[in-house]
């Protein structure tokens, strides 16, 4: 009797194991690698993934996180390993081109509905198109500008309009210093926050045509007059000693927290700083919205760039060459206006998809969204647009200009040399 019971149990266990084995085999796991560090934003992503799993039995969305700098450093190796994620974050630009040329990406041509493409719009589709094939889904747009602390600015007798021009901006910095306030927070250790200064001055001084010519190495390339001038104007700012003490040893998160704690009047950063300056502040609340202002980068008189030109990003998700169809299907759903509007409502980012951004309630994000819409050249972050090698040099020269270790001419020559090396 005991033997029979044991045998029955054995068969039951084996059957259960086989059944679970079968169900496991039917399951598809989609590895989704992201760099989102703000807990509230991650919670929204997790909720979306969980919802998709519920409505699509057999699909498991496995979210993985890497910190921004670690992500950039590890991605090349990761994409060529067995542990490559199916879906991963992309800033587009030259880095995307390298990945596409190397054949590590899956084209999603034909796997995205025309309706979704239309809603994402031409700029978003183009940002992730290489050789006529679509490789990714644009998710959000961002703009770099000065976040300002209105209370500190008014203590220095300033209003945002005083910083509309570069000259006005420089004199504002002097006034803020004279009022005993640190003018600008800067995370120099990460380098990329510093490159916004040189890059945005290039956007203002050189304009789209000269930039495109320089990246192709035409004429004097990056050593031509507007690029040298950008360095000189940045040095004009640096000579005012505008950044917090120790900015070279401060990373982005700490600088965002420094601004969020009300210790500096300005912070040149993308719109994501709205969340990051709050989450990195001591109180976790940062500066109250009514005390916060977003100021467009100052206009430079006589520059070839249009005042409406913006610097920022069109970021999205791309797919590893081995990504299953389920991964693309998940992203088609995730990028729908219905899902994206949740991120707009909570001011996580500005969705690119039409209908997603229409539910933006945050006044800053509304303004930024309008800025980008009216921009004729939305320049992508130079450190991404120019690829890891040239972009890295742009970060380097910006940092060295900020510490006075390089002249404007030397900085421009170094970028030019990097472009020549990369050709």
């Amino acid at each position, binding site marked *: 009797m005991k033997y029979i019971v044991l045998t029955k149990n054995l068969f039951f266990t084996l059957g259960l194991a086989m059944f679970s084995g079968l169900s496991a085999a039917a399951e598809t796991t989609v590895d989704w690698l992201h760099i989102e560090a703000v807990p509230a934003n991650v919670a929204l992503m997790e909720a979306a993934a969980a919802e998709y799993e519920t409505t699509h039995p057999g699909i498991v969305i496995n979210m993985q996180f890497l910190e921004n700098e670690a992500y950039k450093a590890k991605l090349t190796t990761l994409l060529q390993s067995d542990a490559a994620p199916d879906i991963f974050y992309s800033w587009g630009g030259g880095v995307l081109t390298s990945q596409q040329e190397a*054949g590590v990406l899956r084209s999603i041509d034909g796997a995205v509905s025309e309706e979704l493409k239309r809603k994402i719009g031409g700029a978003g589709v183009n940002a992730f198109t290489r050789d006529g094939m679509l490789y990714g889904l644009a998710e959000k747009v961002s703009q770099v500008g000065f976040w300002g602390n209105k209370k500190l600015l008014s203590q220095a007798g300033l209003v945002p309009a005083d910083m509309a021009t570069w000259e006005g901006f420089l004199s504002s910095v002097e006034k803020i210093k004279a009022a005993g306030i640190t003018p600008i927070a800067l995370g120099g*250790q990460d380098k990329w926050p510093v490159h916004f200064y040189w890059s945005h001055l290039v956007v203002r001084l050189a304009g789209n045509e000269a930039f495109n010519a320089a990246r192709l190495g035409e004429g004097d390339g990056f050593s031509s007059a507007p690029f040298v001038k950008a360095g000189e104007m940045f040095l004009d700012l640096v000579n005012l000693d505008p950044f917090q003490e*120790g900015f070279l*040893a*401060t990373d982005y998160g700490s600088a965002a927290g420094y601004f969020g704690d009300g210790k500096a009047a300005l912070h040149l950063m993308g719109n994501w700083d709205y969340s990051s300056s709050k989450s990195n502040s001591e109180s976790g609340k940062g500066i109250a919205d009514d005390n916060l202002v977003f100021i467009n980068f100052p206009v430079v008189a006589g520059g070839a760039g249009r005042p409406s030109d913006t610097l920022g990003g069109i970021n999205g998700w791309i797919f590893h060459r081995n990504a299953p169809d389920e991964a693309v299907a998940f992203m088609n759903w995730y990028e729908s206006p219905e899902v994206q509007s949740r991120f707009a409502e909570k001011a996580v980012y500005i969705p690119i998809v039409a209908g997603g951004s229409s539910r933006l309630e945050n006044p800053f994000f509304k303004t930024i969204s309008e800025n980008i819409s009216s921009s004729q050249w939305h320049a992508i972050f130079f450190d991404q647009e120019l690829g890891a090698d040239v972009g890295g040099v742009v970060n380097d020269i910006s*940092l060295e200009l900020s510490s006075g270790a390089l002249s404007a001419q030397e900085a421009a020559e170094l970028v030019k040399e990097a472009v020549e090396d990369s050709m």
Partner: protein
Amino acid sequence: MNVLKTIGRSKFSSRSVVLTLFLPPTLLLFFWFVVSPMIDAGRFSFYDWNGYGQMTDFVGLDNYADVLTHRHFSTAIRNSIIVIVISLIVQLPLALWVALALTEKSWTISAIRVLFFLPFMLAEVASGLIWRFVYDGNYGLVPAVGDMFGADLPFVLGDRLWVMPAIMLVVVWKYFGFHMMIYIAALQSISKEVIEAARLDGIGKWKIIWHIKIPLIRSAIMISVFFSVIGSLQLFDLIFPLTGGGPSHSSHTVVSFLYQFGITRQKLGFGGAVSVMLFMACVVITLLYQRALKAQESHE
């Protein structure tokens, strides 16, 4: 005679069995994780390669020329030499001095030894992060101490002048306990009779240290010097969490230079050239060490 032969044969066969069982896996692992990456790095160094796909753009020795003419390479070399020199003239004498004071066996001395050894047991990245907080100019311990004495101390990690001394303090703090342990183990192996006999002959404490103890632990000192030099050349994982090579690339060592300008810039060929140069430097130092070791053995 036959019995001896049998014993010899059985010893030989058991040795063969041990070699057959244990040597192949070790050799395989050594080849896979040590030799193969070295060969790969050597291959990379002759190509212009961004890490994706196949290497096709053969550039000969261009990467080596690029490394030697890179404007931050000399800084990295200078910093690596600073680390070696400070390790040899500050860290090792300090470790020896502490070891001489802590050779006796008692629980209090053991507790102090553990205290000094603790930093070595901490992961390098964790140590780097801890010291980054210590040095932080806004919230760290250094400005707090400065405030106590009414001094406005600089943001050491953001200052090109102070950053290397700050890093060297962490390096000495982190590794001197390891060298101290090597010296203590060697000092404890010195026969007590030798020291006692010297004392009975009226030889002073310092002369005993200088003429008896130090010569008797010369082998330990040599291995400690060897570890110190090789470790200094490979210093990386303290640098990155502390400074990331900054400010303005002023605190790069050779390995952090390799990582920054080779790996993160996706210039694997450039990185390969730096790693080959570093490997050659390590080989030269190892050969010099072996030569010194042989000279010492023949002297003894």
